[in-house]
C-alpha cells in the first residue's frame, strides 16, 4: 500500500511542478512583453526619440 501512496504523491508532485514550470514561463513571457511594450511607449513616435536615444546622445 505504501508504494501506491508514494506513486500517488509522486504523480501529484510531478504534475504540480510541471504546471508551475509551464505557467511560470508563460508569466515571464507576459512580463517581458509588457516591459517591451512599456519601453516602446516611452520611446514615443518617430526614430531616434525617447529616453534610450537621449541617453546615447
Amino acid at each position, binding site marked *: 500500500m505504501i508504494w501506491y501512496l508514494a506513486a500517488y504523491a509522486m*504523480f501529484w508532485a510531478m*504534475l504540480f511542478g510541471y*504546471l508551475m514550470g509551464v*505557467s511560470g514561463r508563460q508569466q515571464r513571457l*507576459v512580463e517581458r512583453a509588457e516591459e517591451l511594450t512599456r519601453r516602446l511607449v516611452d520611446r514615443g513616435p518617430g526614430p531616434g526619440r525617447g529616453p534610450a536615444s537621449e541617453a546615447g546622445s
Partner: protein
Amino acid sequence: MSVYALGPIALWLGLALALYGAVVGHVGGWRRDPRLSEAAVGAVFGTAACVALAYALLTAAFVTDQFQFSFVATNASRAMPVWYKAAAVWGGMAGSMLLWALILAGYSTAAMLATRRRLPRLAPHAASVLLTIMGFFLVVMTFSSKPFERLDFLPVDGQGLNPLLQNQWMAAHPPSLYLGYVGWSVPFAFAIAALITGRLGTEWITAMRKWALFPFLFLTIGNLMGSHWAYIELGWGGYWGWDPVENSAIMPWFAGTAFLHSIMIQEKRGMLRMWNMALIVLTFSLTILGTFVTRSGIIESVHAFASTNVGIVFLAFLTLEIAVSVGLIWWRSDLLTTENRLESFVSRESAFLFNNLLLLGIAFAIWWGTFFPILSEAFTGQRISVGPPFFNQVNGPLSLALLLMTGIGPVIAWRRASRRNLERNFRVPLAVLLVAGVAAVAFGLRAWYAVAVVAFSAFVAATVVQELWRGTRARMRSKGTGAAASLFGLISRNRRRYGGYIVHIGVLFVFAGIAGSMFQVEEKARLSPGDEIAVGRYAVEYRGGDIEGGPNYTATVANLTVREGDGQPYRVRPERRFYPEGQEQTTSEVAIWSRLFEDFYAILEAFDPATGASDITLIVNPMLMWIWIGGGVMVFGTLIALSTPRRTAARRPTRDEDAEAAEAAIA
C-alpha cells in the same frame, strides 16, 4: 390581476416547500418515520410543480412580448423568431437560474419516483439534499436575480437576444449542458444520504450508476454542441478556445468520467469507497464552481454573464457544500475502509486507479490554468492569464497517457495479471501499435504528438476489436449463430461493458480530430473581385460581395468559388451580419465546406462597398469532422450502456444488505 403575478408566488411557494422538505426529510430519515419521509418526497413533487409553473409563465411572457418584465425586455424583441424567444429564457442570468431549477426539479422528481421504494433508508435524506440545492437556487431567484421583476415603464420593444446566441446550436447547448451539470446532483445527494445513514457499501453506487451516466451523456452532448457553436459562430477557425467558461464545463466531465470508472472497482471488488465519495463531491462541486465562474465575472470570458453580486452567494454555497461533505466523509471514515486491497501494480484495479489520476490530473491542470489570473495576482500582485499554449502543452502528455490507458484498462486482468494474461491480451495490440507508428512516420508524419496519437489509437482500437472478436467467436461456437447475430447478441448481453468500448472508439475519433487540427493551414488576404488565392491544395476565386437583408439584421456577403485540384468548383458565402436593434452588434457567419477528412473554412473580416474588396481569412482544417463523428459515437455508446436492464446490473452481497438482514432479524 395578470396571470404573470403567479410567477413570483410560485417561486416563493416553491422555496417554502423546499425548506420544509429539506428539514422533514432528514428528520424522517433519521427517526425512520415513514410519514415524515413521505412528506419530504411530497415536497419534492410540490416544489417541482411550482418551478414548472414559474418556468411556463416566463416562457409565455417571452413568447407574447411582455416587456413590462425587465428580464424579458433585456433579452427579447418583437422581431425575434418565436423559437429564439422561447430559447431567450436561458439567454440571461435569471432565466438560466430558472432553467437550472426546472431541470433539478425534473431530476429530483424522477429520482424519488425511482428510488423511494427501492432505497427507503436513503431516499428521504437524498430528497433533503436535493431540496437544499433547490432551495439555494430559489433563494437566488427570489432575492437577487428575479425573473419576474417589473420595470417602472412599458418599453415599446425589447433589446433583443445577443446575436451570437441566435443560433440553433447555442439555443440547444445550455439545456444540454445544464442537464449534465444538474444531473450530478442526484448521485451527490445519494452519496450524502449514504454518508448520513452509514450505508456505505455498494447499494448507493449500484443504484446511482445510471444516474451518473445521464449527466455524463448530457455533458458530452453539451460540450460538443458548445464546440460546434464556437466553430460555426465565433469565426476564428477553432472549436475550443480554453475560455474559462468552456473550461468550467469540461472539468466536471473529467471528474465525472473518473467517478464512472472507479465505481466499477467498488462494485466488483469493494474498494475505493472513500475515493468514490471524494470524486462525487468533487464532481458536484465543480458544477457549482462552473456556475460561480459564469455568474460572478471573477474571470474574464467571452461567455460569462455580466459581473453580478450573485457570485458571492454561489461561493458561500460552494464553501458550505464542500465543508459539510468533507465533514461527513471525515465522520464516516471508519466505515469507508476498503474490503479488499490492491494486490499488484499490474492489475485492472491499478489501471483504473491510474486512469483516475490522469483524468483528475487533466481536470486539475485545467483548473490551474483557468484560475491562474487569481493565483498569480494573489502571489505576485500581477493578474496574468495563461492562454491556449499553456493548456495544449500541459494536457497533451496527460491526454496521450490517458489514451494509452483506454486500451490497457478494459483488458488487463483483475487482481494480478499473469504473464500469460498479458501476452494473450497485449501481444497483437502492441504489434499493431508498432506497425501504426512506423507507418505514420513512413507516410510523412513528423510531429511526435500526431505519431503517438496514431500509434496509441491503433493500440486501443486493436484491444477493442480483439475483445469483440473473441466474444463474437465464442458466441458463434456456443450458439451456432452467424457473425453479425453473435456480435449483436454479445453487445446486447453486456451492454454496459460493450457500450463502454463503443465510447472508447468515439474517444479515438475525437483524438484523431484534435490531432488533425495541428496541421491547420491559414491564409489572410485582401481580395478585389476576380482575384485568386491558393490555400493548401485549394484555389479560391473572389467574385465580389453583396449586401442582403435578414429578418432582424443586414448582412454583407462575400462570394467565393473554391476548387480542390481539378475537382468541381464549390461556392462558399461567408457573411458579416449587423443587428441594428438593442446592442447594435456585428457577428461573423462563417462559410464551411465540410467533408469527411477536411473542412474548408472562410471568414469575411470586412467588406468595402465602394471598391467591392473584402478582407478574408481562409482556413483548411484537416480531420475536424471526426470530432463530431467521435462525439456521436460516444453518445451512442453511452446510450447502449444506459439501456442495460435493471436485472443485469451488477449484484453481489453487500454490507448494507447484511446489515438490513440483521436489522430485520433483530426486529
